[in-house]
């Protein structure tokens, strides 16, 4: 009896150690369409938005989520607010198809409805990204987008995770 209790406690402890990669929490299971959330990330020093090119001149154009390509810039020309990032995810049956990370005040347009999940903690956000990046069932290009999103966010938490990933055996 005592042994079975010990085993149960051990299993629970193991489960706690295991649960760090859970992607649950931000998005409802089986969700579709565009979803967004904001993360206060003081170490995210970059300003991420889209640019448009006309006659060789670049200007801030905002990002169109419906476009097949976005001309992304982190050059600082967008005068967005550093320290805050806005994550956009397009889901199909709960699975991410597209991931974009932009500055919170970068203007975004889309024909679709975007469900806003409000402010999310850095830890929750990192857990969600880890869940995507480490899920072998998700398409490689989406996992790569998630990695790229972490890199361009320039947040300390993102780089600490990348360090851990690259050091893993």
């Amino acid at each position, binding site marked *: 009896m005592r042994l079975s209790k010990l085993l149960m*406690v*051990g299993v629970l402890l193991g489960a706690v150690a295991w649960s760090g990669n859970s992607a649950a929490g931000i998005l409802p299971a089986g969700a579709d369409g565009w979803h967004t959330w904001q993360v206060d990330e003081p170490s995210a020093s970059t300003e991420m938005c889209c640019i448009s090119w006309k006659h060789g001149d670049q200007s801030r154009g905002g990002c169109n989520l419906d476009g097949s390509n976005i001309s992304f810039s982190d050059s600082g020309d967008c005068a967005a607010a550093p320290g805050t990032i806005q994550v956009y995810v397009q889901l199909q049956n709960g699975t991410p198809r597209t991931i974009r990370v932009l500055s919170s005040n970068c203007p975004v347009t889309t024909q679709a409805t975007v469900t806003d999940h409000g402010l999310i903690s850095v830890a929750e956000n990192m857990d969600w990204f880890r869940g995507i990046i*480490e*899920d072998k069932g998700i398409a490689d290009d989406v996992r790569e987008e998630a990695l790229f999103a972490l890199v361009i966010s320039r947040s300390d938490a993102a780089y600490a995770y*990348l360090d851990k990933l*690259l*050091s893993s055996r």
Partner: protein
Amino acid sequence: MKTLAKFIVVTAALLLSMPSTAQSDVNDVSEELKLAALEALIAAPADKALPLVTKVLEGNHSDEVKERALFILSQIDEPEAQATLLRIARDGEGELGAEAVRMIGIGGNDESLASLASIYESGDSETREAVLEAYMIAGDKRSVFNIAVTAEGRDFEEALDMLTVMGAFEELRELRGKKGVSEALINAYAISGDFESLRELALDGSDAERQTQAIEAMGIVGGEQVDTTLVEIYRNASSEDVRESALHGMLISGHDAGILELYRASEDPSEKKELLQMLVMTGSDEVWNIIDSALDGDQ
């Protein structure tokens, strides 16, 4: 106390028995994911990417992962990144060292490229080859030329090959003055399509062997200018060797019309026979017209 000890042992056993991912705290430790993470670092600022890339290079990773890290390092235009690349290029063993050399070429940092000259001098054949490739990637014709000036034997030929691939006409021409004319240089002129240099050598009778090599090599260049020049050389040949080389040159360039023209103009039966044999070798349709004419008694 006993119970607590058991509890600790059981818990530790459970945690240790979990997959290795629990130890590294990362669920997917695959090579592919590491490669993708490294590739993503291309968008990272230097101060963020450099520590991660350096750690990978110093860690126990596969050559493929380290080679990808070298590429990211090559894109960081910071002295520390370039110093690390150069250190691995100098001291790295086997393929990793050679890859670091090539990455210096991709990075295109002028100081690092200049340092490759000493790495070439002290490196083994794999390293020397990588240095030439790095210069090719960087489009640094002058550095390959400098190597060619001092290199001998196989190393000289490899440097020549690289100059040829790079389309370094001026450097190849300059080498003639520095190293003299060689068969390798003539081949380089031919492959790079330097008709003018070959024409000069083809008309220079001071070295019969090089002259005939140059005449034949003109055939590789091909084109109207070459065809006209080869027919002229044939007609004005001062020796049988020169004439034969011109004929071979026409054969290589596929100048059937020139051989036919010479055939029709010739009144020497043995020469006509040789030219006809040459036409047969070219597979020219004109051969059948000539045979028909001969049967009709026209020629």
